């Protein structure tokens, strides 16, 4: 039996919504060329004019009413739980075999205990919010729900909308003025700088940058965690200063994490970067797919190959943990959900986990998943999550 390819379905869909990357385009073209039948099919899809009008019919089909009819016609006995709970049950059941394969552990069905309800009430995922500090000591609170213009310096208006804060394309002649964007715990924010560079800031981070970069170089200062997509500019080099390091960038995407100042992590997704100690000439070159780990206590720089995804998934609204300690996982959760964590049993910090979760999911989901497979228990006191055995 000739199976059609799920990946090709995705590519065609992305083509239809107009968001196909170059690489994907090549793959799709290759598939289209492989077989005249493929070509015919693709042409049919492209010439289909009724996508939007058919969606109108689709939208208006009442599936809830239809479901009631199917239930009564087929005499289907629904469980005593509500439909929503029924869905949870399925999710839990789906989870079990997967986890058995993955971890070799037996897991009971997910329980809906009181802890979960408490947490859902008290703890909310983070959202887009930040504080903008301007040169003249003015302060603005921004969220990405607002569509507004802000005068951030004389004659410079910034647009704030759902895609974050966008600075106008400008080059400063003369004095450079700075803005500071501070993202609190439980927040995240995106800012596009005057050269087109996009910076995603994670919870508890701060970025200091010029309202407009000068003619010679582009320089910003970061604490916390940020993901940079640096715009190419062969004339003006870009550098990020973090504590005692300077990261020199040659048109590139990378993630810098300085939450733990003793261990600063820089991960490169594409392009080339060089890392220098402040006041030193030695530059360490980092290539795509590599992590540069600066250990401040030992004063060493370690560069090694890693899977970059777990380091950058946060900017795409995901937590991704790859063999990560419970201590690290809890500290990431505490920043995003803005809660404190207390380990009553210290040895639990060294449990390691692999997995992922949407950042906008409820925190109880991840804690339940951990509690189900280990001896770890969680309880809540005010805004502190207590971890114990």
């Amino acid at each position, binding site marked *: 039996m000739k199976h059609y390819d799920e990946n090709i*379905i995705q590519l065609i869909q*992305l083509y239809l919504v107009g968001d196909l990357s170059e690489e994907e385009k090549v793959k799709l073209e290759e598939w289209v060329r492989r077989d005249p039948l493929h070509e015919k099919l693709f042409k049919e899809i492209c010439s289909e004019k009724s996508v939007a009008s058919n969606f109108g019919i689709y939208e208006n089909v009442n599936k809830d009413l239809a479901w009631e009819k199917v239930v009564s016609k087929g005499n289907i006995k629904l469980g005593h739980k509500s439909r929503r709970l029924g869905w949870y049950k399925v999710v839990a059941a789906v989870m079990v075999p997967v986890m058995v394969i993955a971890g070799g552990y037996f897991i009971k069905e997910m329980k809906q205990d009181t802890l979960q309800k408490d947490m859902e009430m008290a703890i909310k995922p983070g959202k887009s919010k930040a504080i903008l500090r301007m040169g003249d000591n003015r302060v603005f609170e921004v969220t990405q729900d607002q569509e507004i213009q802000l005068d951030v310096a004389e004659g410079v208006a910034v647009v704030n909308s759902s895609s974050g804060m966008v600075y106008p394309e400008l080059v400063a002649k003369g004095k450079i003025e700075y803005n500071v964007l501070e993202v609190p715990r439980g927040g995240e924010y995106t800012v596009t700088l005057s050269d087109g560079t996009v910076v995603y800031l994670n919870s508890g981070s701060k970025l200091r940058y010029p309202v407009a970069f000068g003619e010679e170089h582009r320089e910003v200062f970061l604490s916390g965690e940020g993901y940079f997509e640096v715009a190419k500019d062969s004339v003006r080099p870009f550098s990020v200063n973090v504590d005692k390091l300077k990261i020199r960038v040659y048109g590139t995407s990378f993630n810098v994490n300085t939450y733990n100042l003793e261990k600063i992590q820089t991960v490169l997704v594409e392009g080339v970067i060089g890392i220098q100690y402040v006041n030193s000439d030695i530059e360490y070159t980092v290539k795509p797919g590599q992590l540069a780990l600066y250990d401040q206590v030992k004063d060493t720089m370690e560069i090694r190959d890693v899977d970059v995804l777990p380091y950058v998934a946060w900017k795409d609204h995901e937590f991704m943990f790859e063999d990560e300690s419970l201590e690290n996982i809890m500290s990431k959760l505490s920043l995003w959900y803005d809660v404190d964590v207390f380990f009553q049993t210290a040895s639990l910090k060294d449990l*390691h986990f692999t997995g992922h979760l949407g950042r906008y999911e409820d925190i109880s989901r991840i804690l339940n998943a951990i509690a189900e497979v280990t001896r770890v228990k969680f309880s809540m006191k005010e805004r502190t999550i207590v971890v114990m055995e």
Partner: protein
Amino acid sequence: MVQDELLIEQLNQKQEGAFKILFDRFYRYLVLYAMKWVERQEVAEDIVQDLFVQVWERDTIYSSYYGFKNFLYNSVKNASLDYLKHKEVEGRYVRYTLRASEAGEVPELEVMKDEVYRRLYQVLDELPKRCQEVFKHYLEGKKNSEIAEILRISELTVKTQKRNAIVYLRKRLGGVYMLYVLFKVGFM
């Protein structure tokens, strides 16, 4: 995907939760699909409802998600053609339709085409209303300025909503979205 196959396994064991999920995924698109032949929406809805009742009542064991999908499309097509055959009125249109599409297996590439649309609609349907409006016009081939005028919003808003929609669609169509936490545990 693993969870698709597990849904089928659960359907084979007559778990009603899995049945409901599959119903939610396919019902509306299959109605649209039946309307290729039967035109009237009530008739199409009856055909698809009866099919799901059968899925529940019969003891068929489905070997895979893929096989299940093919079964649904085939059944809807054949039931629609059957309906036309048994209909009293024998208009010219009916005869033409019958001649043009013979009953039998739907070619797999045809199924693929419908899967493109089914999943696209499913994800479009999840977008917030405002965003969806903008995107529907965009799919009709309208320009940003035209959309802005029709919906009485700024072009900037059109752009942002379009971008938001694409980001969301890419995530969902690419299967990045996870419905459950997948965890593996290891001890140091």
